[in-house]
């Protein structure tokens, strides 16, 4: 459905024939996956024990393998996200007071800081992997419907669905305008001309989007829009979903037990 948000699976309602071929995780009830992922994130961020966090990262990795994520796109994502953490992880050993284990150009690294850095890295990656495996493979619109079925306010869900719907449209428009700029010899540099040009580009996108939203509103009114939207699909959870939920609950309790006992 959307290029920008990356390749995603087909809809969660697959027919019998496809179901046997699809990965198991993708055929589970989106609501269950969403809930499990949120609970997993909360549990992991509450943990402080190295052993438990390593286990959590293992679970995340296992889920990713299980979901058969495309290898290269996944690696690229993880590298990008980890480069964000790098600054924090590199400075932490030097800024946290504690027992000195080694020094580097007159900066002293502490054991506590090193552990803290490892903790942050493990937590972030464990959550990232589980997120990619459980929700990342969902189609964005399915995620929106699952959010609605989980009693998220309807207006927020519709905002979500509208945004998802038009991200791709405006990404294409952005690409077209960039192409037009390129054809006129625009090369981005660090100068005022670049900033002004890109500023105008954003401005034009806003202007066009407002005009488009007026057309959308008119089309909606033409079809009898009365301030309500209807979400038609009903999500049912089968025995497999229940088994998955129970297994995840046991795993989460196990993680907590390892971390705190």
């Amino acid at each position, binding site marked *: 459905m959307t290029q*920008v*948000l990356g390749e995603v699976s087909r809809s969660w309602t697959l027919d019998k024939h496809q179901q046997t071929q699809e990965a198991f995780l993708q055929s589970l009830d989106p609501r269950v996956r969403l809930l499990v*992922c949120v609970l997993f*994130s*909360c549990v*992991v*961020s509450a943990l402080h024990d190295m052993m438990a966090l390593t286990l959590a990262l293992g679970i995340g990795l296992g889920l990713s393998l299980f979901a058969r994520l495309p290898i290269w796109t996944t690696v690229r*994502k*993880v590298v*990008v996200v980890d480069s*964000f*953490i790098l*600054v*924090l992880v590199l*400075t*932490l050993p030097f*800024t946290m*007071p504690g027992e000195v284990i080694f020094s580097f150009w007159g900066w002293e690294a502490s054991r506590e*800081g090193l552990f*803290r850095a490892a903790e*942050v*890295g493990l*937590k*972030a990656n464990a*959550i*990232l992997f589980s*997120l*990619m495996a459980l*929700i*990342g493979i969902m189609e964005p619109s399915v*995620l929106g419907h699952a959010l609605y079925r989980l009693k998220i306010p309807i*207006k*927020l869900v519709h*905002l979500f669905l509208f*945004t998802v*719907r*038009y*991200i791709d449209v405006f*990404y294409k428009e*952005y690409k077209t305008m960039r192409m037009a700029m390129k054809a006129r010899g625009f090369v*981005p*540099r*660090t100068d005022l001309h*670049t*900033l002004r040009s*890109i*500023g*105008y*580009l*954003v*401005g*034009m*996108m*806003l*202007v066009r989007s*407002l005009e488009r*939203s007026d057309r959308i509103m008119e089309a*909606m009114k033409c079809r009898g829009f009365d*301030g*309500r939207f209807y979400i038609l699909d009903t999500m049912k959870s089968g025995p497999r979903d229940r088994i998955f939920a129970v297994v995840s609950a046991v795993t989460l309790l196990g993680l907590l037990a390892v971390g705190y006992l």
Partner: protein
Amino acid sequence: MHIVDGALSNPVLIGGGLLAASGVAYSLKKLEPEDLPRVGVLSAVFFVASLIHVPLGFSSVHLILNGLLGIILGWAAFPALAVALLLQAVFFGFGGLTVLGVNAVNIAVPALLVYFLCRWGLSAEKHLLAKRVADGLFLVFFLITIWAGFALYQLYQVEGGSWSVTVNSVSLILFSGVMAYGYFLYRRGILSVAGFWGFLGGSLSIFLTAVMVAISLALSGEEFGKAAEFVIVAHFPVMAVEGLLTAATIQLITKVKPELLHAVR
């Protein structure tokens, strides 16, 4: 800009989550169903804009544009940003689920402040007064950044790390240069009054966001003090970029489609 999972302490996470939830709830209540397509489409544009990279020296920065977002969407900036951050967390892996609330507050609250601050100046009937207020605001903001820069500089002086001092002073000099340049453009009449308000809003929102990120890091533990300072220092160039870009955008909008500024009630 994004804080990753695992860094913040639990009280900060919970506090941020509650604040974000109440902000989103309040602005959803204010949002008319008729405005939904408009807000959705605009928030898609801002999502795409956040994918644009602007070259900056040897590297590049991606746009955040929360100042512009606040000016155009007003209160609706809160749910729009929450949705965008959720999408980024789920499909790009930037940020995470547990920090979603904190990130939303850190970006949306500055956007709202800029909305309250700049909305009046952008559409003021009394041009002279808008100019005066813009001058005053510029002065205050300029002094604050200089002060923040010096405070950080002295901190680093005590620690004695030569590398960080250089980075800090270079980015501070760069930023004050850009601020002065923006003021110069505005004085010469190249930048309109509305454009100057956009410049102030664009850079102020990034400054506030950097400060809020630094605060949420510092609240989470002593050990993040250095990282918190680094966040503010690293955002001086971003402030310059976003300020000038927002100025250009606002100038275009006021000429081409002024009703964009009142698109959402």
